[in-house]
């Protein structure tokens, strides 16, 4: 967050952002590992009285009292009953029975969403600058639901229950579970209740990428956030004995390597166990790695643990190379020894040298922080990907936001690697994940809420989605680091968030609770299932035809059968399938006429929008349109992507389209 406000255009457009007084009325609830209240990110200098709507508390517990809260950090609760019922009493020698964050994750996410301005922030001199949350004047309430043993659904439900009572405006959840139907998923259930009360719920999409169908938190009333990179990097390079140099990234700061080439060994050849190349605990033979640079392959155990394993075995440094699962994605870590992370192509080239030279040597050179990296953003390899495995007709993720190498506040209880043997303490740490992208959107949603207090959660999400961008300034499409090719709506959703444009989207796709109930009817949910999820007796009308395609979502996901003998939806022709979607746009800008434009990447798909123009004469006026998707036969697992845009010449209201044959 010493870079993301600028990367998102917030710094350059401060004049168009909502007044700080209105932002300070917005409360962001963060369900996570708690908070380190002493972090400068929660300094309340200049903050006025706590909003009168606030009903929350700062709960007293171990190493945490009400005095740890202030006008910035206005609430701190913790939820242990579910956790302790399953795993036994909290071991207070390892974690506090309070909202105190001894993990770091919760402090990082909360400060990313709404941290105060902290000049001179850095991690070991890397990423130096002014750290700040996306909504610096918003208030923070933390709900600690994650403990050393995990985050239990009974605690999560209790926390959301309380957050609703407390009157938060935005909820940020950087966590997820296994895929399950909405009526069984506590996050989806809690989010539904929050949405009903006008609370926007932003959740991380998951780190299961680049595999397809790897998304978490896909309910349509949740804002699901994937991760992209920044234009910032932490370059380092490896120089090997044959004179060649290879680029990578590093956050190492400490004792330098000797000013000479060091012997170089592949971990797989310095171990007598299967999988020795992964540098798992206790697998390296000290006599074979002592004083050497060790090359380890990424995967299975944490990256920073590999560094610790090499150090413990006497290694002088580590080169950590990606495998196919991560491709060229470079995630920097604050390793305990001189270390560098490298992409798969570079790693393979180094391995070719390492395994062919009789006396291989190497050294690592660290170059600090570099800005202006292009292209950026690119979709992070780890960012979970669609299609949506619960409801394929709802395109997820909704959008991407910065989630790679993010600097934000950190706990004072553990070091930046969070390893037990890491006795370093830092005020800020640099970490990666959709956990980091989610609170960026939570903070941006708080800004939109402040600017438009009457907007529903769906309207806020719509504004963020329809103004997201899918191309770089040079016109080329956003890339996916996992493939090096253009990313698709299954990777980036509507695109990368652009908060300044989102403040004035022109039109929004709004959704009410009833719309979501109709959606559940379209899913053929039983009355019992709807009651369990939505907490009401709602019977679907047997005389009414419900369609998932009618959910007024700001994106389009269309599924055609690969066997074209059958047809879907209304209308059909021999050898082709037809699917119709209906949408309604609400004018939140000036009166005017919007004209539609459609683009697809494949001529086998026809997209017809009717009508082609929509005229709005007053604020909050609603106009509907229909999209007919027609397609000829395509092999199974084929995907075609496109885009539908409405424009009045000033605003562009864009929707991604994903068409699949299954």
């Amino acid at each position, binding site marked *: 967050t010493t870079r993301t406000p600028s990367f998102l255009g917030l710094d350059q457009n401060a004049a168009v952002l909502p007044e700080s007084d209105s932002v300070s009325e917005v409360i962001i609830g963060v369900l996570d590992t708690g908070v380190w209240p002493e972090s400068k990110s929660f300094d309340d200098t200049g903050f006025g009285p706590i909003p009168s709507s606030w009903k929350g508390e700062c709960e007293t517990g171990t190493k945490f009292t009400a005095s740890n809260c202030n006008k910035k950090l206005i609430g701190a609760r913790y939820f242990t009953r579910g956790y302790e019922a*399953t795993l036994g009493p909290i071991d207070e020698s390892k974690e506090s029975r309070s909202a105190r964050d001894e993990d770091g*994750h919760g402090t990082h996410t909360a400060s990313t969403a709404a941290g105060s301005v902290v000049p001179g922030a850095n991690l070991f001199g890397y990423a130096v600058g002014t750290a700040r949350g996306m909504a610096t004047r918003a208030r923070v309430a933390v709900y600690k639901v994650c403990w050393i043993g995990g985050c239990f659904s009974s605690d999560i439900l209790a926390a959301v229950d309380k957050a609703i009572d407390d009157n938060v405006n935005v909820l940020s959840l950087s966590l997820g579970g296994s895929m399950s139907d909405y009526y069984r998923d506590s996050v989806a259930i809690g989010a539904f209740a929050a949405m009903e009360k006008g609370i926007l719920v932003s959740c991380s999409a998951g780190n299961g990428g680049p595999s397809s169908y790897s998304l978490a938190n896909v309910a349509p009333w949740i804002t699901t956030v994937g991760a992209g990179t920044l234009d910032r990097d932490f370059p380092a390079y490896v120089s090997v004995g044959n004179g060649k140099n290879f680029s990578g990234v590093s956050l190492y700061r400490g004792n330098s390597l000797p000013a000479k080439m060091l012997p170089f060994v592949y971990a797989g050849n310095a171990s007598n166990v299967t999988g020795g190349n992964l540098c798992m605990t206790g697998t390296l033979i000290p006599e074979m790695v002592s004083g050497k640079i060790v090359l380890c392959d990424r995967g299975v155990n944490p990256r920073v643990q590999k560094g610790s394993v090499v150090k413990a075995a006497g290694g002088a440094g580590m080169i950590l190379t990606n495998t196919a699962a991560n491709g060229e994605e470079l995630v920097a870590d604050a390793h305990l020894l001189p270390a560098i992370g490298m992409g798969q192509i570079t790693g393979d080239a180094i391995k070719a040298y390492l395994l062919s030279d009789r006396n291989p040597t190497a050294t690592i050179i660290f170059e600090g922080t570099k800005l202006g990296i292009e292209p950026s953003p690119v979709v992070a390899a780890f960012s979970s990907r669609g299609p949506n495995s619960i409801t394929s007709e709802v395109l997820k993720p909704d959008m991407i936001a910065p989630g790679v190498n993010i600097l934000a506040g950190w706990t004072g209880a553990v070091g930046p690697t969070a390893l037990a043997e890491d006795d370093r303490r830092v005020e800020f740490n640099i970490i990666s994940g959709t956990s980091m992208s989610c609170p960026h959107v939570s903070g941006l949603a708080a800004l939109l809420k402040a600017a438009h207090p009457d907007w529903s959660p769906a309207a806020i999400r719509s504004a963020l989605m329809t103004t997201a961008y899918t191309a770089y300034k040079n016109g080329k499409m956003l890339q996916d680091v996992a493939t090096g090719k253009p990313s698709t709506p299954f990777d980036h959703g509507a695109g990368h968030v652009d908060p300044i444009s989102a403040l004035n989207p022109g039109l929004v796709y709004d959704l009410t609770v009833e719309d979501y109930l109709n959606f559940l009817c379209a899913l053929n949910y039983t009355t019992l299932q709807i*009651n369990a999820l939505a907490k009401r007796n709602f019977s679907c009308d047997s005389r009414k035809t419900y369609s998932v395609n009618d959910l007024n979502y700001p994106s389009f996901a269309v599924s055609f059968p690969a066997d074209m003998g059958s047809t879907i939806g209304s209308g059909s022709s021999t050898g082709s399938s037809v699917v119709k979607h209906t949408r309604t746009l609400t004018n939140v800008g000036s009166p005017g006429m919007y004209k539609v434009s459609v683009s697809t990447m494949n001529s086998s798909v026809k997209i017809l929008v009717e009508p082609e123009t929509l005229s709005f004469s007053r604020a909050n006026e609603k106009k509907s349109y229909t999209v007919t998707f027609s397609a000829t036969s395509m092999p199974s697992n084929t995907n075609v992507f496109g885009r539908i845009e409405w424009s009045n010449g000033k605003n562009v209201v864009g929707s991604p389209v994903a068409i699949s044959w299954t």
Partner: protein
Amino acid sequence: AAKKTYIVHMAKSEMPASFEDHTHWYDSSLKSVSESAEMLYTYTNVIHGFSTRLTAAEAQKIEKQPGILSVYEEVKYELH
């Protein structure tokens, strides 16, 4: 028998008139299958219901009680 945590969803509209407070009704439903079980949380906003520790047999039994919508085993979530 080993106990696990379950989240019990209740149909609040089916609460018998004899109960003045829904938490008493929840408690009564729980006690009908287990004298020893205690509620971990009662929920108001997110669901009508509560969480508790039950054996598998008790969970099956409470699912059949009047006014119970569903009984789901607790799930563990992870940070992203």
